[in-house]
């Protein structure tokens, strides 16, 4: 009976558990972020997305790290040094710890979420500067829905979607916790498109991103787009976004350490 149960679980496990077939340890993607200034797309920062491995006494986790740093010529005007991290399961990409450390000009903010998937809750720690420049901590325990992720692991989850099985117009929703608020990101498969990138001409899945009941992403379905290469690595090669303070784009510069 036990053996039968084991065989059943083994056969159905790909259906029950989402498997990571896309993200490798040691992957490094580098992007150029541009912002539209008076009609001219101006390169302002470099964005890196890296993966690594972190071992604890009882588990080995995948470390997803995103950094953003302004180019030196802009540092005098508006210096950005942002760090976004997520520690996830290497197979299912389920997040366990999320950290966001942002330094933008004189603005500083640190957010930390520790996920408890058994109780569907998140322990949140916010560190911020007050008016006097003193740093203060604020902790909270938040109830989340089952399957809610942080923003970094959501990006990697989008890459891990089986887009090759999807039909044009198909939509997948992700519950994301950001700034202690849960929101729903919808990812819609628009079409396949071939675009020229710094890593060559690539056939891509064109995805439209939108947020439910939020004003962070502005515009229609053609204003917030993500292009993932239509291969097993699903590398994000181009993204364009429209936010309340303007619009910009991300273009890939290099991609190394890919899984496939």
């Amino acid at each position, binding site marked *: 009976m036990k053996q039968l149960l084991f065989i059943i679980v083994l056969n159905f496990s790909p259906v029950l*558990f*989402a498997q990571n077939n896309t993200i490798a340890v040691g992957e490094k993607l580098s992007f*150029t972020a541009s912002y539209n*200034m*008076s009609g*001219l797309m*101006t*390169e302002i920062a*470099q964005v890196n997305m890296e993966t690594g491995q*972190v071992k*604890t006494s*009882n*588990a080995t*986790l995948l*470390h997803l*790290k995103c*950094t953003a*740093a*302004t*180019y*030196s010529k802009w*540092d005098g*005007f508006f*210096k950005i*040094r942002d*760090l976004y*991290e997520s*520690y996830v*399961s290497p*197979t*299912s*990409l*389920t997040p*366990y*710890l999320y*950290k966001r450390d942002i330094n933008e000009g004189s603005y500083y903010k640190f957010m930390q979420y*520790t996920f408890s*998937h*058994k109780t569907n809750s998140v322990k949140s720690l916010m560190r911020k500067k007050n008016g006097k420049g003193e740093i203060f901590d604020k902790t909270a325990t938040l109830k989340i829905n*089952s*399957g809610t992720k942080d923003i970094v692991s959501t990006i990697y*989850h989008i890459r*891990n*979607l*089986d*887009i090759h*099985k*999807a*039909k044009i117009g*198909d*939509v*997948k929703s992700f519950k994301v916790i950001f700034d202690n608020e849960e929101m729903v990101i*919808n*990812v*819609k*498969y628009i079409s396949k498109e071939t675009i020229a990138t710094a890593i060559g001409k690539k056939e891509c899945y064109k995805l439209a991103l*939108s947020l*439910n009941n939020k004003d962070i992403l502005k515009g*229609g*379905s053609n204003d917030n787009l993500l292009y993932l290469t239509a291969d097993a690595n699903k590398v994000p090669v181009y993204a364009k976004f429209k936010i309340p303070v303007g619009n910009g784009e991300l273009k890939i510069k290099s991609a190394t350490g890919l899984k496939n």
Partner: protein
Amino acid sequence: MRQLFIVLGLIASILALVMAVTPLSQFAYLPALSALIFGFAAFYISKRKQMPKKTVQLIFLLTIISLVLTTYKSIFNTAEVGNLEELELKEEASIEDSKEILEQLDIDNVDIDNGTTELETEDFQDIQDLEDQ
């Protein structure tokens, strides 16, 4: 009229020169172009009325310098990330801190996830609304 063009030309050419030396150099083309237009207009009027053209020449000189500088910067300057030492130190410290936090977490069921990786055919009202806009 000649004086107006000279004043506008001077302002535009100085603005172009200032922008050319800052990171906003790619925007310097706009005032430089305006300075050239005002300069030519002032030059034409000066020539017709047989008046001195020294200030007009100054406008052209400033504009040419700003254009040369902007073009040079757009061709030869590559975007480089500034000092990342602080960020790298922060990353290292964060990993050590994270390890301590993760040790305290219950991550026995590390691979259990209720998410599916397949996209679904669903009609989302919000997306429909966005498309209609």
